[in-house]
């Protein structure tokens, strides 16, 4: 077995202070639709080994240092050559010494869709069939394209301290486009999301919701300037609070020990994460890799750290940094492992009360991507509503302007909660004072 060959080769190297190997096997089915026509159908198989070696080195000032060399190899590759190269690279740098994770019990986090594991293409086709059926019920909206991906991942992680762990997980991702046309006017909405289980996609609900948004977009006009309460719900709220897979997010960046060590995070344990007065509900956040079937959940992370539910912020005060073993050692903290999903406690307001006075609701952003260090944002609005006297007037365009942390310092959270992929928490939030630059 190749993994045995690699570990034997690593054990035989006296110059190494430690090592880890990840054996990753991926099987994926992909389906691409143009309307109801299958444009492309793909099957992908991938297998690789990720090797990390650690060497004791000496810093220029004579202090003991440590270097890391990382290399990937494919089955049948030259093991000795790969280890030689990784070891050589590890000898080139002298960072402060740190340790590797030790063996520890792993939590039983559910991550697997058994049906998808048995037949990923079949499971994916069920999803796309369901999506097409759901879309066909909407007479004024049509589905113009879609893509689906179903993946089964098996990862075994071993290291020189005796960690030997395995996890199997599934992912199913779906994106679809809905369009509506009236005369010369055409509008569309785009939805992209993923879950561990096909049943958690709630395809019917997603299609129905986006069909409504598409029809509202048809009625939307440019917004006027606005400064005041802004409500975010469901997917828009998750994007705002927890980020998307393109960007790590402000919480994940400023709450990470690596950013603290690099001096780009000015957060301090025991101090408020906000730069001013908190006028809204107090903020409590967990970095949670144990959310059942969460897309950021796992049993162990890339370093082999067991999954944990880590209290990051309690009542506005930073309690922990999210820390790998390396940065935990550097900063004298307990390792938590990778960040995982974002969890917030239920708020104290029912959602209806948060939507009782005039406000603006943002339903779709072009791309909400705040500066993860400063928190500042200026993002185009794809669809929003001005809600006054019980009337929801849709608008499109303009920008939502503000600062992420200032916004969280002035927010009220709903008592209704939900699970949305990498987020578990309130499904409605009312931000007290945000600005919209209209057209």
């Amino acid at each position, binding site marked *: 077995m190749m993994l045995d060959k690699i570990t034997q080769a690593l054990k035989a190297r006296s110059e190494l202070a430690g090592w880890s190997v990840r054996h990753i096997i991926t099987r994926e089915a992909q389906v691409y639709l143009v309307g109801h026509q299958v444009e492309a*159908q793909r099957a992908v198989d991938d297998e690789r080994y990720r090797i990390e070696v650690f060497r004791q080195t000496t810093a220029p000032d004579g202090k003991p240092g440590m270097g890391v060399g990382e290399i990937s190899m*494919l089955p049948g590759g030259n093991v000795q050559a790969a280890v030689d190269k990784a070891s050589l690279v590890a000898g080139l740098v002298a960072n402060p010494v740190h340790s590797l994770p030790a063996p520890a019990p792993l939590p039983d986090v559910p991550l697997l869709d058994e049906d998808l594991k048995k037949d990923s293409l079949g499971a994916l086709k069920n999803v796309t069939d369901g999506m097409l059926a759901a879309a066909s019920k909407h007479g004024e909206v049509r589905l113009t394209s879609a893509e689906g991906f179903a993946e089964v991942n098996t990862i075994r992680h071993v290291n020189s301290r005796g960690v030997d762990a395995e996890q199997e997980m599934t992912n199913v991702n779906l994106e679809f486009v809905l369009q509506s046309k009236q005369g010369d006017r*055409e509008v569309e909405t785009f939805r992209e999301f993923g879950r561990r289980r096909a049943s958690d996609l709630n395809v019917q609900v997603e299609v129905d919701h986006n069909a409504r948004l598409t029809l509202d977009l048809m009625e939307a006009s440019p917004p006027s300037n606005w400064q005041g309460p802004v409500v975010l719900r469901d997917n828009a709220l998750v994007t705002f609070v927890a980020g998307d897979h393109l960007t790590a997010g402000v919480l994940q960046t400023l709450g990470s020990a690596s950013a603290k060590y690099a*001096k780009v995070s000015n957060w301090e344990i025991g101090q408020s994460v906000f730069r001013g007065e908190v006028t809204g509900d107090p903020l409590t956040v967990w970095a949670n890799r144990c959310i059942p079937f969460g897309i950021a959940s796992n049993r162990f992370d890339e370093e082999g750290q067991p999954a944990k539910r880590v209290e990051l912020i309690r009542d506005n005060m930073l309690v922990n940094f999210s820390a790998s073993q390396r940065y935990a050692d550097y900063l004298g903290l307990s390792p938590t492992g990778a960040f995982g999903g974002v969890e917030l406690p239920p708020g104290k307001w029912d959602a209806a009360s948060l939507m009782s006075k005039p406000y603006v609701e943002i339903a779709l952003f072009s791309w909400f991507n705040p500066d993860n260090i400063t928190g500042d944002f200026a993002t185009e609005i794809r669809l929003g509503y001005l809600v006054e006297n019980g009337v929801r007037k849709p608008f499109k365009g303009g920008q939502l302007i503000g600062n992420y942390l200032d916004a969280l310092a002035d927010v009220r959270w709903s008592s209704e909660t939900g699970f949305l992929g990498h987020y578990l928490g309130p499904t409605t939030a009312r931000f007290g004072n945000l600005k919209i630059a209209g057209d």
Partner: protein
Amino acid sequence: MTDLKLPPAMAELRPSLPAIVAQGQERAPYFSVLLSNRHSLEIVVNNREERVTERPPYAGTVLSAFDGLTMHERAVGGFSQADVQKAAKELVRGLQSGKYIPQDVPSRSGDFATQVRIDPLDLTVQEKLDRCRELHRRAKGLDARIVNVQILYRESNEHSVFADRGTDTAQRVQRVILYLFVFVAGEDGQVRYNWKSKGASAGWEALEFSDEEVRKVIASAVALLGAERIEPGEYQVVSAPGVSGVICHESFGHGVETDMFLKQRARAAHFVDRTVASPLVNIYDDPSRAGAYGSYFFDDEGLMAGPTQIVENGAFRRGITDFYSATALGIPRSANGRRQDYSRKAYARMSNTFFGPGSSSLEDMLAQVDHGIYLDKWSSGMEDPQGWGIQVTCHYGHEIKGGKITERVFAPIGISGYVPDVLQSISAVGSELALEGGGCGKGHKELIAVASGGPHLLMKARLG
């Protein structure tokens, strides 16, 4: 003879490809094979640590069988002849030959390699690390407010071999990019940062930073400590070449990818040969542009690279294509069928996309602005091909007052509006063209290397 430095496993499999193609074509009207190997290295040097990482390689074989309606593909990790032959047989099993007759294209063959003077493959990792350390050393002590300086170096060495009935081509594309990040902290502890990057399809010769460039990055980071938020509204703006590039990329780059035409997601499909911009505007996509970060010799569907003029004197002329959308739409192909890696599908994607140069100097453009904004550096953009909305975020911009750029800084600045309105408002186009390399996604995924750019542009835009 071009020395491609092909990985041995690829070189070994290459002679078998004609037989695999022939076997595939017994059942599929069109059959092709792509061998793709992308190997990359990343080096990070900052005040607190150093890292050298061989990025996970993407090495695999894509077998494509097209029946006239659906592109059936099998992607196999690695280049094992037995695995590839087995996968090819499985892929075409059950396929109906159908009535589709592929277009005849001229036979193509040849081996091509990026021209490099200081080849990253000839430098040791130690030598590359030392070059990064040297740049870090030059920057780190230049201002007391600096809390960290980070050098990030990435090289990507991409080999591909493509074969179909008339094609036997191979290429080596060498891309390098070097970033200088500077983080500074104010008296209140707030952290601000700035960066500059140099990227090219080239070797280390393209990555030299002058002392003036280093000092400018630091000065701009320090200036951001006093940055203001801009009062939302419409402004006369002059965009720096990088900002011009991202406007071009998001509007008539993504907006003219013809797979989006097929999906009826691109408004541009209704505007062929219609005016969409000021007559001063010309937009191109050119994967054959020597040295640019997004360049290649043939695309991932085997078509030889060449320039495409997308907008000519303000009129939209044509889009950029992949094989499937060009075939389905019955339009000529351009060499823009690109994959993130072998595990992903090919889409119509940009390469080097840019506004063509005009005749104005920067000084002339600034002189026309009494009160406006110089948009200096972009940080992100997002496309909206159907709605033609625009979202470009600038890391910072400077006030222009009385025709001069002042020291007053605004950050961040969002540009929004309707694409044709923004492009129609362009009233002067600079004479000096510059491109910036970076990554590009299709929506939220499918990351590839591209460059975008242009000259300075004078226009009106809504800022917030």
